[in-house]
């Protein structure tokens, strides 16, 4: 019922914008023709476009913002979750939507054509040290498309 709370909360915002660069959360995916032949990890979300054309109407930007917010929400749910039962995360609505997002992006980015296998991961790295190794907070099972 967190969603009802979000609606209520929308009348009492925190007004925090870009206050701290903090960390970069990255959703990556790898795909392949079989469970044991998965390719290398690639970024699942493309960068938000910066063009004058999208200053007033920007559906692609809005979608990518929503996708990044979704991924951030999943990272919060992972850190708030039961450490002893990490498998519980796959039952969460947010996880299911992120899984849909991965599949949608594989098709959108033309990373594979059906049928294929895929696995995704969520990584967190400090914005100050993006080049350093990221901390992988979620590694999904391998799924069949």
């Amino acid at each position, binding site marked *: *019922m*967190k*969603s*009802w709370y*979000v*609606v209520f*909360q*929308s*009348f009492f*915002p*925190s*007004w*925090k*914008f*870009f*206050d*701290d*660069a903090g960390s*970069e959360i*990255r959703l990556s995916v790898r795909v392949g023709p079989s469970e044991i032949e998965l390719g290398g990890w690639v*970024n699942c*979300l493309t*960068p*938000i*476009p*910066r*063009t*004058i054309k*999208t*200053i*007033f*109407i*920007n*559906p692609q*930007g*809005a*979608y*990518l*913002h*929503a*996708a*990044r*917010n*979704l991924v951030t*929400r999943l990272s919060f749910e992972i850190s708030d979750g039961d450490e002893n039962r990490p498998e519980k995360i796959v039952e969460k*609505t*947010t996880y*299911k*939507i992120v899984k*849909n*997002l991965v599949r*949608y992006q594989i098709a959108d980015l033309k990373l594979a054509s059906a049928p294929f296998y895929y696995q995704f991961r969520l990584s967190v790295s400090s*914005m*100050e040290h*993006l080049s350093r190794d990221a901390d992988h907070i979620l590694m999904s099972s391998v799924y069949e498309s």
Partner: protein
Amino acid sequence: MQTEPHIVLQLIARLLAVLSVIQGVEFLRLSSVTGSQGVWRWADIESEFTNASVVTKQILRFLLKDRHFFYLNLFRIFIATAVLVSPQPVLLTILLLIHLATLLRWLGNFNGGSDYLTSILLLFTSLGLYFSDSKMPVISLWYITFQVLFSYFKAGWLKLKTRNWQNGLAIREFLNSPAYEKIQIFDRLTKSSTINTFNSWVVIAFEVLFPLSLVNKDLALIFMMAGLLFHLINAYVFGLNRFIFTWLAGYPAIYWCSLR
């Protein structure tokens, strides 16, 4: 200027209508991601409402299920167009309900701050117009002004207290974040720590000092012009296009309050 509060609220309502048209058009363009084979599928989202009453679940399903959400946004555009012609409070209430349903559809994770200010503006503009013969229009204008000024002030205050904003590091990181398309000019601009620190302090000063717009109408106009420029830049740099009309919709209230 002795403009009646309800006239100012009507102007705010029309700006909100423009915002609603933009939101509606964007959601229509995104119908593939809310469809049954998309990302935010109703079949998954529905599980968030298992404890709701049967009637509530039926209403939500009727409004938000896959293709229904597409039609809801067509309806949003139709109502918003009607508000542009005649800003009736009942129409604004419908826009508010559509907006809140949309928040549920995206599990509250669509456009962050602009969604929140949209909720506040739609609610208080509706209330002010419903009870136009009472003190409500004045209360609405002051409350909207408070929220808009506070949004700038608090965002600026938090930056002011953050070391990486004081030394310009944060602005460099945000401008070069891999979440956004790489632009050569930002690469070059952010190489200079002097420029980063200067830009940081310009942003902080603008946000923290924005409440000074209440001092008089000239200051209000200066801050609102700067605010418009600020939001246009943010729309380009960070893809926050919805913030333009959301915050712009609150400006008539600030101007009216600056005359008191």
